[in-house]
């Protein structure tokens, strides 16, 4: 049996799916072993697929041998290759953390199957070239992810999961209506094919707005962010990490696919893009200020996600910032996953998530505090780190486009990030008050500390691997014509272009 490289794409979806089934049948012990093994297998496959991609360029696979419009297409290009790597690395790190922090007991029995199912759904969504298949993938990922928030059935987590679920249901219905409109006017669901058939005009705009609105809600973009902080703040740490690093990112990924790959022939897109970017700016400022005001560590980290998601909207106003934006998405994913794991360890050690309990913690769990610090370096955009490279690329693009407002916002964002993260450091390194000195500090399992540290180091390491990663990340088709950074954005084609 000779497999074509494209057929290997299937295993990215089915290896975790079959592992989830095995975890259902064989129990928690098998589940956690399989989770780690599946991540390793995925990494090996991605190495191979990446090699084929560098040699031959993007490739795709028509399922059941039926091409679109009827069939479903799986496709690999630079963008989803990088995101698949992000998913795999974050899942590897968080699964190792969960190995110790969730374990193989009763919690593990409930945890590992949906955990693996979510991995399968995330990969399936990223690989799919079909608007409807992406919808189903996003639903499976959301349902599994939401149920895992409530793993410990604490009141806060249950409320947060419920709020998240209601908004997710609303968001998917709005998105689904958009897809229905696209199918009604193009007769296709494959985003490239449907995009090439979109006629322009009011109906096309309506479809685009519906899909965008639904996805913005699911990505928690300001001012639709309300559900995110309680959900990410109250979930078990590995789950918070995956929610912040991956689940909100894949719906943004869908947004990028729709905006930049469907080549929507609508003239007003530029101003709509400005609006999206303005929402991003709002997220950046609001999320950072809210993070400054939090008294609980995980909520601080969760509000930081609200803020950092703002950067990912910049590209809608400034297509030249494409590379910087994706670089930020990856670096933030790694750094935020590391930060949630480290924060989880700190809370585990103290038995409380209140910030005022932090003083003196550096002496007890230095590895986790160090991981938190490394992740913070990347989030603040200090060199050398993935976050620095990302912000540098975005700044260069904004500078070249003479988008001074954005230059200012990018700098302010970094300052605000530094402000709320230094608040954590100041407290952590402060001496313990004599009254608290007697309080016991639990030591987390080494695996919990090492996984946080490894992910943080990857975020820092991204500062040294800019060129190879950016080479993989070709420009999206719509940005190609004359899209040197800084030129006025060719965000749309001319109406009715072939």
């Amino acid at each position, binding site marked *: 049996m000779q497999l074509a490289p494209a057929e290997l794409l299937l295993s990215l979806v089915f290896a975790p799916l079959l592992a989830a089934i095995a975890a259902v049948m064989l129990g928690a012990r098998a589940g956690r072993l399989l989770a780690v093994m599946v991540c390793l297998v995925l990494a090996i496959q991605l190495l191979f697929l990446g090699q084929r991609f560098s040699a031959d360029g993007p490739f795709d696979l028509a399922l059941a041998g039926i091409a679109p419009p*009827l069939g479903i297409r799986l496709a690999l290009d630079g963008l989803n290759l990088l995101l698949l790597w992000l998913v795999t690395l974050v899942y590897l790190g968080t699964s190792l953390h969960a190995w110790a922090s969730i374990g193989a007991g009763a919690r593990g029995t409930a945890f590992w199957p949906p955990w693996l199912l979510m991995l399968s759904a995330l990969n399936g969504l990223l690989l799919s070239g079909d608007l*409807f298949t992406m919808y*189903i993938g996003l*639903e499976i990922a959301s*349902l599994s992810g*939401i*149920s895992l928030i*409530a793993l410990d*059935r*604490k*009141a806060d987590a*249950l*409320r947060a*999961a*419920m*709020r998240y*679920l*209601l908004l*997710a*249901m*609303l968001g*998917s*219905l709005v998105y*689904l*209506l958009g897809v*229905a409109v696209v*199918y*009604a006017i193009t007769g296709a*669901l494959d985003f490239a094919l449907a995009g090439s058939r979109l006629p322009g005009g009011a109906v096309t705009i309506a479809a685009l707005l519906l899909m965008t609105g639904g996805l913005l809600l699911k990505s928690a973009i300001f001012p639709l962010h309300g559900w995110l902080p309680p959900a990410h703040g109250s979930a078990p740490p590995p789950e918070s990490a995956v929610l912040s690093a991956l689940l909100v990112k894949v719906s943004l990924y869908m947004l990028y696919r729709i905006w930049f790959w469907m080549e929507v022939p609508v003239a007003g897109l530029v101003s709509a893009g400005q609006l999206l970017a303005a929402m991003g700016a709002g997220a950046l400022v609001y999320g950072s200020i809210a993070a400054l005001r939090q008294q609980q560590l995980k909520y601080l980290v969760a509000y930081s996600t609200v803020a950092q998601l703002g950067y990912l909207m910049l590209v809608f106003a400034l297509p030249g910032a494409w590379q910087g934006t994706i670089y930020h998405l990856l670096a933030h994913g790694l750094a935020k996953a590391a930060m949630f794991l480290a924060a989880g360890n700190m809370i585990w050690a103290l038995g409380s998530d209140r910030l005022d309990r932090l003083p003196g913690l550096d002496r007890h769990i230095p590895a986790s505090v160090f991981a938190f610090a490394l992740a913070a370096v990347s989030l603040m955009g200090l060199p050398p780190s993935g976050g620095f490279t990302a912000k540098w690329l975005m700044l260069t693009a904004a500078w070249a486009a003479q988008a001074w407002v954005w230059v200012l916002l990018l700098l302010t964002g970094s300052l605000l990030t530094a402000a709320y993260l230094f608040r954590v450091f100041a407290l952590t390194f402060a001496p313990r008050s004599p009254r608290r000195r007697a309080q016991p500090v639990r030591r987390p399992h080494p695996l919990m500390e090492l996984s946080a540290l490894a992910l943080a180091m990857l975020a820092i390491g991204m500062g040294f691997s800019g060129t190879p990663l950016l080479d993989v990340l070709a420009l999206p088709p719509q940005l190609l014509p004359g899209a040197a950074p800084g030129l006025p954005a060719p965000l749309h084609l001319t109406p009715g272009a072939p």
Partner: protein
Amino acid sequence: MTASLTLYMLAASVLAGLGIYGVLIAGHLLRKLLALNLLGMAVLLMLITLGARGTGAPDPVTQAMVITGIIISISATSLALALLLALQRVTDETHLDAEPLPPVGEDGDAAGSR
């Protein structure tokens, strides 16, 4: 056939409006879920109506999409119901808002039932 399609499209948009209204005014979580399911029905009705355009048989792809939509909606609804029961077991709440909302007027809600 076109006349009827127009009628069904009108019904779908009214149902969608009612669904959104319901989501916004509902306090009890079961009510929110009813409204969300109503909105879902409206979207699916729209999809089917669009699939029934033209002269031949209705579009089988839209029909398959609707079946998927029904399955996704029962999956999400059952998760929400399980969350609701767990929430009530732990907190005794059936509303999301921490503070009980004052009962409001025109539906004749009995004041002080809480």
